Every structure is written in C-alpha cells, then in structure tokens.
C-alpha cells in the first residue's frame, strides 16, 4: 500500500513546493515595490551652511529672540541681556518641538515638555538630554550672517 502511495506523495510534495514558492515569490514581487513606494524619496537636504538674515542687528533688541529659517530648519536668534547676538538650532533636543526665548526668564525654553536651556544652549532642567546646536553669528555690513561650525 505504502509503495503505491509513495510516488504520488512525492509528486504532491513537489507540486506543493512549487505552489508555495510561487506564492511566496509572488508576494515578494508585490510587497517589495509597495514597501519601496511607501518610503519617501530622498529630497536634497538644504546644503546651506550660511544664511544672511533679513533683520538688521539694530532690529534685535537686547533680551529678545526670534525664529529664522536655516535652510528647511528653524533656528533661534537671540540677543542676550548683555547685548551679544547668538544663534542656535531651534529644534529641541528632547522631542523636536521648536524652542523660544523667554525674556521673563532670560533664557531659552521649550513649551512642549518644559525644557530649559541657558544662553549657551546648554540644557539646564527638564527632559532635554543634550544642548542645542550652536551656530556662529557674524555681523557683516550691517547684516546678520549665521553659519554652522566649520
């Protein structure tokens, strides 16, 4: 009895193997393009390492801050109470909210999770784990130029 069934069993196994591998390969052929499709294409990151701001140094009052565009990312320009211009990445190192300068506190603050940074961008209290990235600020012909560290 078993001898009679044996070849048929083998044939069935072979057919099942073909069937399941074809089904598997078919799924791969569908899922691969779909998964690639869902990943957004790499867009050229703004390569600007330097920006000239629209505001003039005279327009930035001491003990104040404002957001500027550094390529596609927000930056924070502040003038310290002592009159020095400084710039940082405005993206909080905790969970990427946009920070602001609090003139009442005299330092940088993130509203989302109550993170505090000092005037050097160093994380003081709250959840932020790292300091804000600091940019170099120069004044050239009465224009503010912000650049990343070389």
């Amino acid at each position, binding site marked *: 009895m078993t001898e009679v069934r044996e070849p048929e069993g083998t044939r069935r196994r072979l057919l099942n193997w073909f069937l399941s591998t074809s089904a598997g390969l078919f799924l791969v052929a569908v899922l691969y393009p779909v998964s690639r499709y*869902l*990943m*957004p294409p790499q*867009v050229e*990151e703004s390569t600007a390492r330097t920006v000239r701001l629209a505001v003039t140094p005279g327009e930035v009052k001491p003990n104040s801050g404002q*957001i*500027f*565009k550094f390529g*596609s*990312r*927000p930056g*924070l320009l502040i003038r310290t109470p002592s009159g020095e211009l400084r710039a940082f990445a*405005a993206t909080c190192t*905790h*969970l*990427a*909210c*946009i*920070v*602001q300068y609090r003139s009442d506190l005299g330092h940088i*603050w*993130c*509203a*989302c*999770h*109550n993170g505090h940074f000092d005037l050097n961008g160093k*994380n003081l209290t*709250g*959840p*932020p*784990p790292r300091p804000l990235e600091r940019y170099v600020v120069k004044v050239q012909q009465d224009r503010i130029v912000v650049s990343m560290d070389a």
Partner: protein
Amino acid sequence: MQHGSLWQWLDERVGLAEMEKLAKQKEVPVHRHTIWYYFGGMTLFLFLVQVTTGMLLLFYYRPSAEEAYESIQFLMTEVQFGWLIRSIHAWAANLMIFTLFVHLFSVLFLKAYRPPRELTWYTGVVLLGVALAFGFTGYLLPWNTLAYFATRVGTEIVAVLPVVGPFLLRLLRGGQEVTGATLTRFFAIHVAILPMLTVLCLALHLFLVQKHGMSVPRGVEQRGGTTRAMPFVPHFLLRDLIGWLSAVAMLAVLAAFFPAELGQKADPFAPAPAGIKPEWYFMFMFQTLKYLPSHILGIEGDVVGILGFGAAGLFLLLIPFLDRRAARGQSSPLFTLIGIAMVVYMLLLTYLGYTVSPTK
C-alpha cells in the same frame, strides 16, 4: 410567524430563516454586572457615527498643507451645518475612546478574557491601538498649531526606538520633518488604512462574541451561575437603542454648546506655544514624559519612558496569557490590583496634565 412573499423570495436566496433562528437564540445573562455589557455596543455605535460624519467631512476637506486649514475654516463658517458635522465627528471620537476604555477595563476587572475568549481580548486590544491611531492621525488633519506640534512630538517618539527608529520616522512623516507630505500620509492612514484594519479586527471581534456568547463573571458563576437571561432581540437591543439615542442627544448638546475649535494655522517656523497639549487620552503619557529627567541610569529619559509605555502595552495585550489563575478559574486579585494601578496612574497623570502650570 407568518411571512410575506418578499421575505420568502429572499429567504430562498440568502437564508433569512437561519439568521432569524440565530437572532432568536442569542441571549444575554442577567446579573449585577450586566450593565457593563452595554459598553461594547456603545463603542460600536459611536464608531458608526464616526464613519458617517467622516464620509460627510470628505466632501469638503482638502488634504494638503496649503488648503487643509482653509477648507476646514470654510466648512465651519460657510457650509450649512458644517460646524455640526465636524463637531460631532470630534466629540464622538472622544466619547468613543472613553467608552472603549470603560469597555476595556470592565472586561479586565470581570476577567472576561478567561479561556476561551483570549482572541476576543487580543482583537479588542488591537482595536484600541487602531482607535488611538485614528485619534492621532485625525488630530493633524486640520493643520493647526496644536496639531502640528502634537505630531512633531508624537512622531519624534518613534525615532527613539533603537535600530528601526529613524526608518519609521521617515516612513511616518514622509520625510525628515513634519510637512505637507506628513499630512497627506496621515490622511491616507486615517481614511483608508485604519478603517480597513478596523473592519477586519471588528469582524473577528464580533464573530467571537457571537460564537462564545457573553462572559459571565467568575463571582456570579460561583454563586450558582445566572438564573436569568434576556433575549438579545428585542430586549437587549431595545435597551442598547436607548443608550444610543442618549448618545446622539449628548453629541448634539456637546456639538452645539462646545463646537470643535480650529485655532491658528500651523507655522513650521514658529515656536511651540505655551500650554501645548495632546488629546486627553494621550495626556497621561505626555505628562509622564515631562516628569522624566534627562537621563535615567545613563539612558535618555524619554527612551526609558517610551520603551516603558511600549512594555505596558505589550503587557496589556498578553494579560490572558499571563493571568494563569484566572485561566484556571481561580480568583486573581493580582491582576485586579494591576488594573486598578493602571486606572489610578492614568487618572492622576491626566489630572496633573490639566492642572499643573506648563512652566513648572
């Protein structure tokens, strides 16, 4: 019962008699915990309200960063009853999450996940996840400031995951930052992917409820089981209907007196406003992230928090598997305590989230 010729014509083709028989057989046990049986049906009803109002909103909504806010402004101010449809959609979403939580915790405390109902629990927890994803993706669609920052934070959370984090972040946002590409993606997820997932899980969930019938709590079973039961049709269904009509009345009142707000249009180059907060059902997690220090045992605090919530979610899913005593038909006070601890934690942190000053 005497049936007309149409009924008979249909019966020969789709088998109405069998369905009628099934409907007549379905019974609901009557005991002192019967009230909790209504919350699943209530959640289902509110979901149907969401489907209906959601389809209506699609007639005016435009899913792009340039037009989304303006299209909702138009809907709220120009379109007749536009404010009503959107407000009901927003309120029913909140009520649905609320009844879902009540349903979840009543099932947890009554240990209704005991064998053979483990799969009903699993599909239910998946449906909870889907409902929260509905809330999260829907929140962004008006493209206002609150939504924008909630999405920045919420999507940044996945980036915290080891290895797959950055990949998932790009997949969710459709790029590195939250932009119009994110809005389009969230729209697709909100109106196509999640509804499909819901239908699949809900079909299985409801099928299992029909197959196993209502779970009778162990305490009731020990006292000799239930002596009484009511037919589902029409006794329980009519009671359900009263609940649903009350929900509609409540939605109308809420929508009329507290219409959904729109706020300011999102500006990717403005600081996050003070008092930024997520939907109330994410508040306990949001508030926890505020309290965590920047580092715990050398690991970044938010990583610990997020992995902790992930572990808690996994624990919730696996409860039927972990609660061996309930599976054996014994009392399991430990899991009751864990359930109480969860509820207390969520209530306390939510309370703090709404009362503590944002700068403290």
